[in-house]
């Protein structure tokens, strides 16, 4: 979709000449230095508005929209590098290097900071904010409408409160996420109870392997399993996990589907729902 739009605009540019380009409303040289603003920008912006995206957006392991992102040059979030691109709008996340963002502001650049999405509603807000900044509110509204349609379709699969299964989120180094995180919002949107909530874990926390085994959630959702072997990841193939969770009660959803609050996270909900259907299938046999 975006690609086709790009080709269309390219033709318009070539045929219509520079006057057409100048007629585009809103900022024309947008640089994003955060993985999540990168992807929101890709969804909302006209390709001609984008100047550069963060290097993480090019990585298949961290970005969902990496293929689209590769049409644009990457930056490493360094102040000199970004200043030299001469952007008319810089997009950053709260956790982008504060030093870089404040320096760019002092140098007279327009820097807009996005809050990380912690709920499904935050996603709508961020898409709208992006639409306003780029002066493409129509496009933003269209994306939100589609997002809401998808959510509504998925909500049909949500079981009654009493029938809800517990899902344990488990990642490298025994990390999990509880109340106040996007991952928690997604788990609950898919109709599960989040194990971390039951254990009173707020935000991101450590879930000792022992407790995970003792608690025996109905579904174990692993993230961050793909990638080069590291010590942090070894725990995901720990024999104790393999023995206490069968293949039907265990699933893996790549990290990139949890990190950024963008409309494509409905994909995450679909994957979590899939697990339950597999489980139900087994129970009925």
């Amino acid at each position, binding site marked *: 979709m975006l690609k086709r739009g790009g080709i269309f605009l390219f033709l318009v540019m070539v045929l219509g000449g520079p006057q057409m380009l100048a007629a585009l409303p809103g900022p024309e040289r947008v640089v994003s230095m955060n993985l999540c603003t990168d992807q929101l920008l890709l969804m909302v912006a006209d390709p001609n508005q984008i100047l550069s995206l963060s290097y993480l957006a090019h990585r298949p392991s961290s970005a969902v929209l990496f293929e689209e992102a590769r049409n644009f040059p990457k930056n490493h979030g360094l102040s000199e590098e970004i200043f030299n691109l001469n952007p008319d709008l810089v997009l950053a996340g709260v956790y982008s290097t504060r030093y870089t963002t404040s320096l760019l502001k002092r140098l007279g650049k327009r820097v807009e900071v996005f809050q990380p999405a912690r709920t499904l509603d935050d996603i709508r807000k961020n898409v709208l904010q992006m639409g306003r900044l780029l002066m493409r509110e129509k496009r933003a509204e269209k994306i939100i409408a589609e997002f809401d349609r998808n959510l509504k379709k998925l909500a049909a699969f949500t079981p009654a409160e009493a029938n809800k299964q517990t899902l344990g989120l488990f990642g490298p180094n025994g990390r999990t996420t509880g109340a106040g995180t996007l991952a928690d919002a997604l788990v609950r949107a898919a109709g599960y109870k989040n194990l971390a909530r039951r254990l009173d874990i707020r935000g991101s926390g*450590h879930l000792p392997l022992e407790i995970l085994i003792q608690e025996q959630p109905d579904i174990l959702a692993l993230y961050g399993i793909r990638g080069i072997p590291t010590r942090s990841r070894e725990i995901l193939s720990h024999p104790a996990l393999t023995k206490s969770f069968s293949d039907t009660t265990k699933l893996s959803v790549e990290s990139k589907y949890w990190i950024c609050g963008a409309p494509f996270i409905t994909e995450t909900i679909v994957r979590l729902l899939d697990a339950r259907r597999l489980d139900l299938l087994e129970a009925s046999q």
Partner: protein
Amino acid sequence: MIKASGYYIFLIFVLILMTLLLSVWSLAAGYVDLSPAELWNSLWTDTEDPTRLILLEVRLPRMLLGLLVGGALGLSGAALQGLLRNPLAEPGLIGVSASGSLGAVIAIYTGLSAQFPYALPLLALAFSFGAVFMLHLLAGRTKSILTLILAGVALSSLAGALTSLTLNLSPDPWAVLEIVFWLMGSLTDRSMTHVELAAPFIIAGYSLLLLSGRALDGLSLGEDVAHSLGINLNRTRLLITVGTAASVGAATAVAGAVGFVGLIVPHLLRPLVGGRPAKLLPASMLGGACFILLADIVVREVLPGKDLKLGVVTALVGVPFFLWLLMKSRRYGQ
């Protein structure tokens, strides 16, 4: 003489008893509250029982690694101190552990250990061997504490820096977070796989180090006396170098670099064995195992859920001890 050896047997007996008690305590300590009765009963349940899995797949490997790693550090500390006749020779301080860590990091992050699991202990062993060898070259001929410590600081810093560099260069976002594990050590979330990987090398290292006892006794009277007693110094050096590299290298490969164990334990036990290296070796091995088991219990019981690193606990005990030793050795000259 008979009385002394009766006393020694008693000491070893007490140390074995302490090791056993701490091993059992280590199995009982953890994030999930399980009574000894529940743990015992779980041994006779089906294999999918959560309590049984916690006991056999999570706590047992942790306890076994505590035993093996602690023994390796205590024993090699005592042997190195005897060989270099230097009270500050300790695998952590002089860079043997840090070098082992570097070897392990290279094995894991280049993907080598995924292809061939034993690359992990073997590479750590090779790097530890290199470190002991370098120390012989840099500080082997002198009894000066300063030279040994300076050579050790240089080796540790270099190995630590290269470990950080390797992890920083890794494209994986998790790798950088692991620097602290490799430099401080931890037994968290290890599995039986790690025990299988490390145990053969650690135990082989034990045997080599324990064989050097008689030679170290002779050496404690001076090189000339040792020669006249018919002790082959080159053989002793080789035994201890390979033994330390094998045991500390394999221990570090699975647990990271844990400091100060090889310093504190032999010093505490030396007065109790009358300063005889041959007797100090087995005592330090058991003492090291006790120390690590205890430190790992502290990690889990004092700040549960914080995933404290083992090296933090050993350093908190070890640094004041180290400073005290340094003051004492300065007061009496070198």
